[in-house]
């Protein structure tokens, strides 16, 4: 077993309690350890991506318990890419939070940040459905703390809504997992894939209920249309650097849909036939549309960035819900782009908010207005999907993948029109904030009524320029990235390698299930724990 696989989970899990217990009153040391952890995570993620790039699937068996019984972490191309994305984003956000002084406005920012990273990494790496729930809870409970970081009435009220909404989602998740377990007797994703595929279509009524409940949970996380109401208020009222990190959380939902509904409830499995085609795509398109109109109608720049995140999630889920390898490759390309873009837009929104407050109106010219407006311009181009940045390529790929679909005219119309509306909304906001302010008569004794007049250091600009530079690099490297994405999509739709690798060891300690009750088992045992009786496949099915 390759122990590097578990490092992205263990490292923040060790750093976070260390920060709480040993460095509670030393903000400088907290920053050092937090950044060091993020840098190390990025290095680990690069190494893992390099290992996964050739298509090998690696399995890490926790406690050396073999696959269907113990919990496994699985590294394939998709999870490696998501881990790398999280690590890079985490590094950017923690640098910005330090530069802007956000991490000093409340207790335990860095510890919660590390716990959040731990939960996200675990959710991307795990190969067990219940373990996915546990990592969801880890990332959520850290996000509750980060969401209300800094305090304030509106933030607390938005925090209550956010927590309640997600607790309902967690309960639904448990109902879904219970239903799946009651039907199949397993929660390991690869084992679920095998069992679900074996079930005849006539016996799957309860299983289909479970599958839909699970989809609802992931749709809540991804902010799919009828379940998106939590997102604008939460993200706009959270500290905006935290919202920038939350940009990856909607992608956790999208990743879970992509993973579960290509591995377990794949479109070609009889149990899942006809479950999602009818409504997932329309819901995704409506998400893209409502996000675009939200961008146009926002009165505050935090809401503007939040609705921008919603419209990009809508485009992403449109690509995912087509369920073809080409569309999945487009989705994988777009997922990285939309995460960085949404994060950059949130950080730029924070720069504006720190200087003149969140309203999208003309106010006297703020400090660094020229540089911030240039950054906003670049981020807006990326968000709207105009050339030359990767948003254009991503949307083009999605449109191209939808060409043969029955609803192709709808996909094209909604994505193109919502892009246009997004351009209008971003142009309106940019004009009001950056341009009209130059025409105002500024009184001589004017003092900017910034709520937090703490001066932003150069670090904030370096971080945002770095994120946008990564987007530029991502556009230039579109060829190799697309080859990686196409290989990833091919893996997703040909799930044999994943299933076989995960379940390769399922019969390791007991050579023949029929001999399980004989004493010969002890002679075959080559590990200490193998002498304990383990529930084998036979007993699982005896229910």
């Amino acid at each position: 077993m390759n122990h590097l696989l578990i490092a992205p989970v263990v490292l923040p899990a060790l750093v976070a309690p260390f920060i709480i217990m040993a460095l509670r009153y030393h903000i400088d040391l907290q920053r050092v350890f937090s950044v060091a952890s993020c840098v190390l995570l990025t290095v680990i993620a690069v190494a893992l991506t390099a290992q996964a790039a050739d298509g090998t699937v690696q399995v890490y068996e926790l406690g050396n318990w073999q696959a269907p019984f113990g919990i496994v972490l699985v590294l394939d191309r998709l999870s490696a890419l998501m881990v790398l994305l999280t690590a890079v984003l985490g590094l950017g956000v923690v640098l910005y939070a330090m530069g802007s002084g956000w991490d000093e406005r409340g207790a335990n920012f860095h510890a919660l940040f590390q716990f959040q990273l731990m939960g996200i990494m675990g959710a991307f790496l795990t190969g067990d459905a219940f373990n996915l729930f546990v990592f969801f809870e880890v990332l959520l409970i850290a996000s509750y703390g980060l969401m209300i970081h800094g305090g304030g009435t509106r933030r607390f009220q938005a925090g209550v809504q956010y927590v309640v909404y997600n607790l309902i989602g967690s309960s639904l998740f448990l109902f879904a997992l219970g239903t799946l377990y009651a039907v199949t007797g397993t929660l390991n994703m690869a084992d679920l894939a095998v069992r679900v595929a074996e079930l005849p279509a006539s016996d799957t009524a309860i299983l289909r209920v479970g599958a839909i409940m699970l989809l609802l949970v992931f749709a809540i996380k991804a902010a799919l249309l009828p379940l998106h109401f939590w997102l604008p208020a939460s993200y706009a009222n959270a500290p905006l650097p935290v919202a920038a990190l939350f940009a990856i959380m909607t992608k956790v939902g999208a990743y879970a849909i992509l993973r579960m509904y290509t591995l377990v409830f794949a479109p070609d499995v009889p149990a899942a036939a006809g479950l999602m085609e009818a409504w997932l795509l329309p819901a995704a398109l409506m998400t893209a549309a409502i996000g675009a109109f939200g961008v146009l109608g926002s009165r505050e720049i935090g809401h503007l960035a939040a609705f921008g995140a919603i419209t990009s999630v809508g485009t992403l889920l449109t690509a995912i819900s087509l369920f073809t390898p080409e569309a999945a490759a487009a989705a994988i390309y777009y997922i990285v782009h939309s995460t960085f873009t949404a994060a950059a837009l949130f950080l730029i929104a924070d720069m504006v908010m720190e200087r003149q407050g969140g309203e999208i109106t003309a106010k006297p010219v703020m400090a660094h207005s020229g540089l911030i407006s240039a950054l906003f311009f670049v981020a807006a181009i990326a968000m709207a999907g105009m050339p030359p940045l990767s948003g254009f390529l991503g949307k083009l790929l999605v449109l191209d993948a939808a060409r043969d679909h029955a609803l192709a005219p709808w996909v094209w119309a909604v994505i193109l029109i919502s892009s246009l509306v997004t351009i209008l909304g971003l142009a309106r906001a940019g004009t009001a904030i950056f341009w009209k302010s130059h025409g105002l008569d500024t009184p001589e004794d004017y003092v900017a009524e910034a709520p937090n007049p703490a001066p932003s250091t150069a670090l904030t600009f370096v971080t945002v320029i770095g994120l946008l530079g990564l987007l530029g690099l991502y556009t230039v490297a579109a060829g190799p990235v697309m080859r990686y994405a196409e290989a990833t999509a091919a893996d997703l739709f040909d799930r044999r390698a994943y299933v076989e690798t995960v379940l390769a060891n399922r019969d390791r300690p007991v050579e023949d299930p029929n001999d399980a009750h004989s004493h010969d088992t002890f002679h075959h045992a080559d590990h200490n724990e193998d002498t304990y009786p383990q529930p084998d496949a036979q007993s699982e099915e005896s229910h």
Partner: protein
Amino acid sequence: MELLVASAIGILTAAGIYLMLRRRTFPVILGLSLLTYGVNIFLFATGRLVTGAPPILNKYAEVAYADPLPQALVLTAIVISFGMTAVVVMIALAAYLSAKDDNINMTHTTEAGEDA
């Protein structure tokens, strides 16, 4: 026993959903707790209902046993829901003390200026 467990899950879930749709945070949190109780019993029942059987296989005889996995799952779920309830109570208290109002909606009459 099946009827008892099934109706307990149903009543807890129904009461939980009803309370969650209320407007004040206290009933909403109570509703969330009831919903988590309901889901815990549901999880427990997914391993089939067996009475008086140990949750362990017997190597030497064919003895009835209870499925141990849902028991482990439900323990995890109880711990998580307990912690989450504590967190939501604290955040709701902070919101109540800060806004002098425990309405679950965002109140637009409070001074939003201090951090908006």
